[in-house]
């Protein structure tokens, strides 16, 4: 039935994930859209969009003003027909010079389909022109044919910020929290951040909403704590280029994994672990034991609106559930470790993009899963309606809540 889909282990990037059913679906928005939004939220960061007039017009919908709130410049560079043939190097270099003179502190070049398609070499261009400029320049290429979904607009933009970082001495009390904005008041603060503050560690939040200076000084941290898949590629790059180690929390669901990660953080940050999380951990272990008993052998399907489908599927497989089909919006390279766990457990479910849930529900029903998770329109299958509210949360509490929700639906 799902012959047109790839198995999880065959997928190495977002481009391998097919639609579940042939859908008259207009497609996702361009990943440039998110890059435009992010760039507007980083205080002090200017941007130069390079693309067609339509790209420029589209970008202005999200970043409507050529000047940001703090004098940032958000300029547009429209490629003409000659530049498609001959490249746009000179024109873009000239635009960067003008932005430099106009006072841009740092510039993110956002390239869309055409510059990506003709192989425009932004890295080389920047290398060549950087010595002339006061403003530091970095770039992200977001040709939509390579980035079908929107998440690359986020993680590639975040990753590009590493080019703007200064090499600096390590401050052993400094910890960067990656993938969490200081201003996201609508999302509950994960327990770990308050705890780290209580240990008199200095936290710096790196996410949209942070300032250019936050990013610049980020390599002084003793540790990066990662709270979101969007931020992990940046953490990987910072480890490679600046030697800042990182510990990811967002993809840890098992109490034992969380415990180990907390221990690693304590060691890296140089404090003695105390019993602060013991009670939470015990609760999580209890509910996990109950879940293992009840859910063992039950099959599941993921639809849309599951934060991190591969890590979560790996965890549910670990506690004995059977993955039948996963909707994956973006395959992160860090997902491969979780893929291996699922494979080692003897499973290799097909993966897909669900785009027209009304039709796709029928197909899923034929799979006869014991339980579905994520977004469904109307179905008589058992399902956990929404898992998106766990976005930005980590730790024992999240595991407890997820398992509770699943157990509720299983009706006991």
């Amino acid at each position, binding site marked *: 039935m799902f012959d047109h889909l790839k198995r999880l282990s065959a997928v190495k990037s977002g481009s391998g994930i097919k639609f579940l059913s042939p859908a008259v679906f207009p497609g996702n928005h361009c990943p440039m859209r998110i890059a435009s939004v992010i760039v507007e939220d980083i205080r002090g960061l200017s941007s130069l969009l390079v693309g067609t007039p339509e790209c420029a017009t589209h970008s202005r919908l999200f970043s409507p003003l050529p000047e940001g709130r703090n004098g940032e410049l958000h300029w547009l560079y429209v490629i003409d027909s*000659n530049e498609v043939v001959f490249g746009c190097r000179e024109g873009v270099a000239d635009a960067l010079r003008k932005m430099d003179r106009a006072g841009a502190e740092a510039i993110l070049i956002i390239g869309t389909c055409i510059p990506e398609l003709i192989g425009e070499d932004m890295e080389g261009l920047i290398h060549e022109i950087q010595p002339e400029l006061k403003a530091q320049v970095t770039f992200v290429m977001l040709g939509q044919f390579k980035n079908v979904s929107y998440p690359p607009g986020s993680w590639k933009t975040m990753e590009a910020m590493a080019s703007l970082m200064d090499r600096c001495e390590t401050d052993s009390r400094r910890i960067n929290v990656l993938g969490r904005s200081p201003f996201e008041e609508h999302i509950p603060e994960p327990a770990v951040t308050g705890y780290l503050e209580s240990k008199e560690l200095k936290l710096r939040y790196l996410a949209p909403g942070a300032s250019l200076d936050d990013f610049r000084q980020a390599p002084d941290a003793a540790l990066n704590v990662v709270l979101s898949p969007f931020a992990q590629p940046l953490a990987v790059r910072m480890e490679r280029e600046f030697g800042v180690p990182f510990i990811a929390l967002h993809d840890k669901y098992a109490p034992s994994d969380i415990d180990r990660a907390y221990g690693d953080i304590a060691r890296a940050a140089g404090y003695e672990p105390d019993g602060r999380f013991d009670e939470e951990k015990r609760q999580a272990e209890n509910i996990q034991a109950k879940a293992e008993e009840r859910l063992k052998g039950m099959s599941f399907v993921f639809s849309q609106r599951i934060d991190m489908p591969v890590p979560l599927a790996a965890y549910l497989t670990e506690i004995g559930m059977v993955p039948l089909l996963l909707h994956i919006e973006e395959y992160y390279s860090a997902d491969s470790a979780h893929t291996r766990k699922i494979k080692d457990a003897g499973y290799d479910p097909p993966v897909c993009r669900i785009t027209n849930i009304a039709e796709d529900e029928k197909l899923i029903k034929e799979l006869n899963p014991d339980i579905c998770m994520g977004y469904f329109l109307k179905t008589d299958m058992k399902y956990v309606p929404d898992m998106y509210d766990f976005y930005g949360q980590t730790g024992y509490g999240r595991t407890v809540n997820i398992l509770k929700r699943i157990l509720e639906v299983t009706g006991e």
Partner: protein
Amino acid sequence: MKKIAVYGKGGIGKSTTVSNISAAMASMGLTVLQVGCDPKADSSRNLTGGQNIPTVLEVLRKKGDPELEDLVVKSTTGVLCVESGGPIPGVGCAGRGIITAFEKLEELDAFGVYKPDVVMYDVLGDVVCGGFAMPIRGGYAEDVCIVTSGEMMSLYAAANISHAVRSFGKRGYASLRGLILNAKNFEGEQELVDRAAAEIDTPVLYRMPRNQLVQQAEADGKTVVEAFPDSEMAQHYRTLAKLLLEGGGDV
């Protein structure tokens, strides 16, 4: 108007062959327009005294919006020469370059202004991406010939090109007339080419012998047809020119 595209692997003697054919046709009183479609842009060198002429893309890059006279150079043999040229090495889109050059010639109504009897396209056959297939699409050429030697690489390219032409052939465009053997004169070469032609299912249209006069003429930036009009080699080119004019498609 007769429109012929000659493809071939780079370095196989494609441009030498094409410019001699063009010169031969011109010497018969025909108006010939030769369009070089090779980023190296030396298709018409031997028609223009060994000088490279400005390419369409070069002029376009520098001038933005050229006149037809900027692009078409009348050679001493009477052949009208155009070089499409290529992008700056290492940047941009080569295929799009060819397309752009063709569109520019069309926009400037080159065929209407010069009213050539024959248009010869000299096309690099190594990389046949969407752009490089332009001359066999959109009604630009009706007949396609492939210049090849008996060397493996050259025959491989010939097979590749014939595949492309055939796949476009279904679409009502150019059709393959055959191979032109530009012999390297190694042992067994004729047989190798015959076998390849049979595999591709196309005739060997002509077997061009190797002749010192070609190099001698080229040293002066000339075609054999111009430099040694009475030579046997010039006669070969004239015979091939007639052959190409007589058969094949016609508009």
